[in-house]
Structures are given as structure tokens and as C-alpha cells.
């Protein structure tokens, strides 16, 4: 079986799984784990969008 993801969906999938692991392993209680996981996910996606636009600007 071969899966082909585009650049954005590959990065989004990466962000989801990495955020889950970071949230669980870096915080003590459930509430903080969820909050930190969401924070990591937002940072991953935010960084992705910023980097994408930065590359677009550099290319121009």
C-alpha cells in the first residue's frame, strides 16, 4: 500500500501525532496535557504557515 500526502497534509499529520506525544509526556495532569498538546499543535501549524509565506516572499 502506498500513501501519497501533499506537503501540507504531511506536515499536519506530523503535527497531530507529535503534539499528542508532547502533551502526554511534558505535563503532569490531564488538563495541562490537553492544553499543552493544543498549544504544540497550534505552534506547529502556525510555524508551517509562517515558513510557507516566508518562502513565498523570498521566491518573489
Amino acid at each position, binding site marked *: *500500500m*502506498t*500513501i*501519497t*500526502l*501533499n*506537503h501540507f497534509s*504531511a506536515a499536519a*499529520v*506530523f503535527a*497531530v*501525532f*507529535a503534539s*499528542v*506525544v*508532547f502533551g*502526554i*509526556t511534558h505535563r*503532569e*495532569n490531564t488538563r495541562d496535557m490537553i492544553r499543552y498538546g493544543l498549544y504544540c499543535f497550534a505552534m506547529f501549524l502556525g510555524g508551517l504557515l509562517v515558513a510557507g509565506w516566508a518562502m513565498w516572499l523570498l521566491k518573489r
Partner: protein
Amino acid sequence: MANSTTEKGKTIPSEPLSLMSVVAPAVGWLIPGAGHLIQKRWIRGGLLFISITTMFLLGLAMQGRIYRPNGGDLLDMLGFIGDLGAGGLYVVTAAMDWGQGAIAFATADYGTKFMIVAGLLNFISVADAYHIAIGKKQ
């Protein structure tokens, strides 16, 4: 003193070495999330298992390459260490000779990175299982 360490003149008692503090990281390395599951952290263990295993399998399905033990390029050696973190997933993949195709498109390279990161995330998961076993974390 055998049961203590000294740091800047302050004596800190070391954690007692229990059977669980050895078994949990070992099982957690072999099967992602299992280190948490054997300590009855069912939801955390299940989420870690799903996240790490899915990421590794997605990498494989994206035609990513698995690194073999090597003494060549530094990045290849680091890739091997990252892949090795996935434990049983890496052992099975290497034994079945999967992940050996030539990388022909960009997402295949993403697949390679997915597998390395899955291994690295499992290292973090193993450390977390150890901290739970020694009572440093709930």
C-alpha cells in the same frame, strides 16, 4: 554513600531501583505506549501507541527508507539511531526487508522523516514511562 548523590554540597537521595523502573522502559521501547499500559495508564498508553505506531506505519506507506546499522555518513548514523527508537516496529520492518526502496519523490523523503521522528517520540515516551515508574510523575 551508595544511595545518595551530591550536587553543589546538597545531598539528594537517589530513587530506589524497582523492577518496574527497568521493565516499563524496556517494554515501552519494544511496543510504543506499553510502558504506560503496564503501569495502568490506559488512555495515555493507548494514545502513545496509536500516535507513534501510526506515524511509523504512515512513513512506511509513504515509501520512506529505513536506516540500517552503518558506520558511514553521520546523518545516516543519526537516522539509524532515530529509527531504532521505534523498537519492535523497527525490528519487524528490518527483518521483513521493508523500507528499502529508492526515494523517488518528495513525500517518500517525508516518510523517512516520519519513521525517524516516530522513533524519537518513542524515546520520549520511554523516558516518561520511567519517570512514572520511579514515582517522579503521576
